[in-house]
């Protein structure tokens, strides 16, 4: 069954690996170039150096200059989902085309067929998402070093979360495939479920996985925490206790993401009224990267694993 499982899945595995290689072909030269620029301009020493506005500007311009790489990895976060759909296809295709009746009437148990088909899918998926993680963590190193890796293009491509989303999509696809035995609607619906699930996680649930840190500081004279690398959930003018001051005031240089970075806060300073103005930030510090990844992995991969088991159970018991 090992050979059969591999033979039925090798095309899909090759396509997924091909997408990863294409990504690497762009990301590796870009990463090498980026690393040399980063070293050449001594930007590493700027990180966390909030005193120097020159440093802030240099870091900002570095981030702007390589926004393309950032964008590439933003799109690369789709790879686990695409790979999962591809690798779920051989399993669902057997059920759709009726060839499962052929396999189940050879001299093997249904359990063995399930173990090989689903097991091979998960193994190949882990290899592809692992490859993405390694590539992203290596190529993005300078960007992550200066800008942190709490933003989606880093967070969703690094660590263990890519594998979690891969498993999530794989689970949905095989479960729908087992129940429905129609490949096209099963894979389409799995992708839609992925988009909804990830949008929900990225925009709402992730910042609530752990109670965020709230920090308040005086605008005049005091420096707040370094938020460059953090996941900033909210930042606003406040009184000393951190209560939001209702005002029409909008700080200058508001970034498109809606979050104020440390540099923006500096820019807002002259506009603040006197020494009594305070700034409050609610954020997940960069140090919580692995903790957040762990929790998110447990939730998302857990759902995926349960769905894979559901698909296996249903196929074992109900499918004829």
């Amino acid at each position: 069954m090992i050979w059969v499982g591999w033979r039925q899945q090798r095309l899909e595995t090759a396509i997924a690996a091909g997408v990863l290689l294409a990504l690497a072909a762009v990301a590796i030269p870009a990463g090498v170039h980026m690393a040399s620029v980063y070293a050449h301009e001594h930007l590493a020493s700027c990180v966390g150096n909030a005193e120097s506005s020159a440093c802030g500007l240099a870091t900002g311009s570095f981030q702007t200059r390589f926004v393309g790489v950032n964008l590439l990895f933003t799109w690369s976060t789709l790879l686990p989902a695409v790979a999962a759909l591809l690798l779920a296809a051989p399993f669902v295709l057997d059920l759709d085309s009726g060839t499962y009746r052929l396999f189940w009437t050879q001299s093997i148990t249904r359990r063995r067929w399930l173990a090989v088909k689903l097991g091979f899918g998960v193994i190949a998926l882990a290899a592809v998402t692992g490859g993405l993680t390694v590539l992203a963590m290596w190529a993005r190193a300078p960007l992550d070093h200066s800008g942190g890796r709490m933003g989606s293009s880093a967070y969703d491509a690094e660590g263990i979360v890519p594998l979690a989303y891969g498993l999530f999509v794989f689970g949905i696809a095989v479960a729908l495939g087992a129940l429905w035995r129609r490949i096209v609607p099963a894979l389409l619906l799995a992708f839609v479920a992925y988009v909804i699930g990830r949008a929900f996680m990225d925009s709402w649930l992730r910042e609530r996985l752990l109670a965020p840190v709230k920090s308040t500081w005086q605008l005049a004279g005091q420096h707040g925490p370094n938020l460059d690398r953090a996941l900033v959930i909210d930042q606003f003018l406040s009184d000393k206790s951190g209560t939001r001051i209702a005002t029409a005031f909008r700080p200058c240089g508001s970034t498109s993401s809606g979050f104020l970075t440390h540099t923006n806060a500096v820019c807002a300073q002259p506009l603040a009224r006197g020494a009594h103005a305070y700034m409050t930030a609610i954020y997940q510090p960069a140090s919580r990267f692995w903790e957040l990844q762990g929790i998110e992995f447990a939730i998302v991969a857990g759902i995926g694993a349960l769905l894979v088991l559901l698909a296996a159970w249903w196929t074992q018991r109900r499918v004829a």
Partner: protein
Amino acid sequence: MTAALETRALGKRYGSNWALHECDLAIPEGSVTALVGPNGAGKTTLLQLAVGLIAPTTGTIEVLGHDARAEPLHVLPHVGFVAQDHPLPRRFTIAETLKLGRELNPTWDDALAERRIAELGLSRRQRVGTLSGGQQAQVALTLALAKRPKVLLLDEPVASLDPLARREFLSGVLQAVTESGITVVLSSHIIADLERICDHLIILSRGRTQLVGAIEDILAGHRLLTGPRTSPGGVARVHDVIRESHTERQTTLLVRANGHVYDADWQLHEVDLEEIVLAYLGHDGGVAETEPAAVAAR
């Protein structure tokens, strides 16, 4: 005579609908049995139950003395099964399809498989997806036969084939019967040809067995009577009337005879298998239901 396939009070229900109900039958080893009936009669259900693809709702089914659900590895290696529309992985080449059979079956006979492929005039490099329906059916049969099965189950094997491909497919099956004496059960809703291929017959209709027996006995045991219009009372007291039809002046009876049927009041005709099958399929029949059908013991 031992049974290759035996069911007891076998039933399979889907929702509130019995696909197969109270089915008791035994198929003798070495026989070639036709399973006939209209679409939805329960033929596929019976074959899938035999090989364990589905589980019975009631009763038991055993192939070579084992339950395929409970002990798949006691049944599957000895059973060749070709599902309806003979599904095969379309992306595989023929060589890969044979490798599949070799990988998944401990009793695989590679020489037999290769010889059959060569005899069919197929190239090992051809992809299954590019073959004609008849060729795909032959490849599926090769996969089933190279397991060296004791029992071969074929679900509507020739329904989608043209007459020539049908003849070639059945010829392949019969050669295997000649060489290895395997038991064959094939379902079909096409009655023509069955008489020369099969020696036993099971008629299924609406999930129930209507008639089970050796074809020779079935043919010998049925007669068509025609005579002036009358009620079949006298005949029905002695024989089982399977079908009766009347015109204004004439009565026609198809009977299952219990002993001599000669009667000067009736014209006596032999009936062919097709007519008998059709009569049973149109028959609301209490016959097979009142007494459990059993294969003729010889």
